[in-house]
């Protein structure tokens, strides 16, 4: 087990649950939908294992169906955005028959326009954020593009937290490892209070001193 794995395991014992991170992502797409007056918004995380994009949070139209749905990582609009790290803003895209058919099949509605921005954290694109059907009458401006970029940066941080939490959870679930043992100790300590916690901390300090020599 690497140092990162050990640290992640211990951190997982004391950090917020995946539920909290999911709530953070859900709030992200709700806000994205709100600030652009859009019909829907969604966040997709890049899954390294399968080389695909996975829907993690959806607000608005199509929200029930999409969580867990997968898209190719280097084709389609999302794939282009992930690979090139460039946002894209498209209006009247529903004229594309393949796009319309695919969207209708997956979400039950065909957006007329979309914005898609890469979620980049420390050089790495972690996924993409979609905003679907902003009001057609408002012409897109460069200020909106900047806002989209800034917002995408914030969403990337949320996505990075979720990714780290999942890695930590994976370490914890592998119960036979030393790091899982340490994580369980950290988790149990968190749940203690009063004298038992103080005694636990003292014991750990003694162990720390022992391991140093």
């Amino acid at each position, binding site marked *: 087990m690497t140092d990162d794995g050990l640290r992640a395991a211990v951190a997982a014992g004391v950090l917020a649950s995946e539920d909290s991170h999911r709530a953070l992502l859900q709030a992200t797409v709700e806000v994205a939908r709100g600030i652009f007056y859009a019909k829907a918004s969604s966040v997709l995380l*890049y899954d*390294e294992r399968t*080389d695909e994009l996975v829907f993690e949070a959806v607000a608005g139209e199509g929200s029930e169906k999409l969580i867990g749905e997968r898209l190719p*990582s*280097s*084709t*389609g*609009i999302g*794939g*282009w955005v*992930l*690979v*090139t*790290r*460039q*946002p*894209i*803003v*498209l*209006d*009247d*895209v529903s*004229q*594309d*028959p*393949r*796009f319309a058919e695919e969207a209708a099949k997956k979400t039950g509605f065909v957006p007329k326009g979309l914005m898609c*921005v*890469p979620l*980049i954290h420390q*050089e*790495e*694109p972690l996924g993409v954020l979609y905003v679907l059907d902003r009001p057609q009458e408002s*012409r*897109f*401006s*460069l200020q909106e*593009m900047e806002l989209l*970029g*800034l917002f*995408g*940066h914030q969403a990337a941080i949320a996505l990075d937290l979720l990714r780290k939490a999942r890695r930590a959870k994976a370490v914890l679930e592998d119960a036979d490892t030393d790091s899982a043992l340490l994580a369980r100790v950290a988790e149990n300590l968190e749940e203690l209070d009063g004298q038992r916690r103080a005694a636990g901390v003292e014991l750990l300090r003694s162990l720390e001193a022992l391991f140093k020599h």
Partner: protein
Amino acid sequence: MAEPAPERPLPAWSLPAGSAESLALPTEWPGRVTREWAWGGSTGNGVRVCILDSGIEADHPDVGELAGAVAVEVGDGDEISVVEDVEGDLCGHGTACAGIVRSIAKDCELFSVRVLGAGFTGSGTALLGGLRWAVEQGFDVINMSLSTTKSHFAGLLHEVADLAYFRRTVLVASAHNMPVESYPWRFSSVISVGSHEEPDAETFYYNPSPPVEFFARGVDVEIAWLGKARARSTGNSFATPHMSGICALILGKHPELTPFQLKSALYLTANNVEGRDD
């Protein structure tokens, strides 16, 4: 008797005395460079433009005939192979860029190099391999409406961008739309492009505060899209082919220009630079 010394025994990185005549330029530059001089009457005829992107939809009415289309594939050991592209555009973006170039330089030759579709993992390798291949082919203009944030590719991309510059291939590259570091648009050997909000396809500005050097039309642009359709779009991605198209017009009229001279002509004909005649 001693043999005569070879004319240039050393690599010629300098200009020996009395040889300035060897630097005679094939282009007569006027005292005042105007758009009329730079590309008046040109249709981009004879200029080979490469669209390095997601592929191009064949027979799209806004794109017309393609001179060729290849796809870059990445093997398990990161080795590159360039094969004939039978899939076309896997996103729509490359078709959009090709359509914009065609709308400006209607008689240029358009060639597609698809660097998408090899999966996300191999995407940096495909981008680099595709660019290297395109430079080796000697295209006049390479449109790159894409970039990579992977810093370990920066050095390699820099080398290829410089090679292109010295081989008279002009790289026209999109500046990033977001405040992140990405390449190759930040290199001075390329023509980097951001967006302005005006609706005219031939309006462009020189930016005296680089790294972005030129601003071209990039907001609410009507573009060619998949399924022989059209869409409207915004972003530096679409400003870039506007500059590529203008480069093709200039090179159609002045094929001997080097990338440095071409960039100078762009500077002198930019809307915010004096010397224009319109």
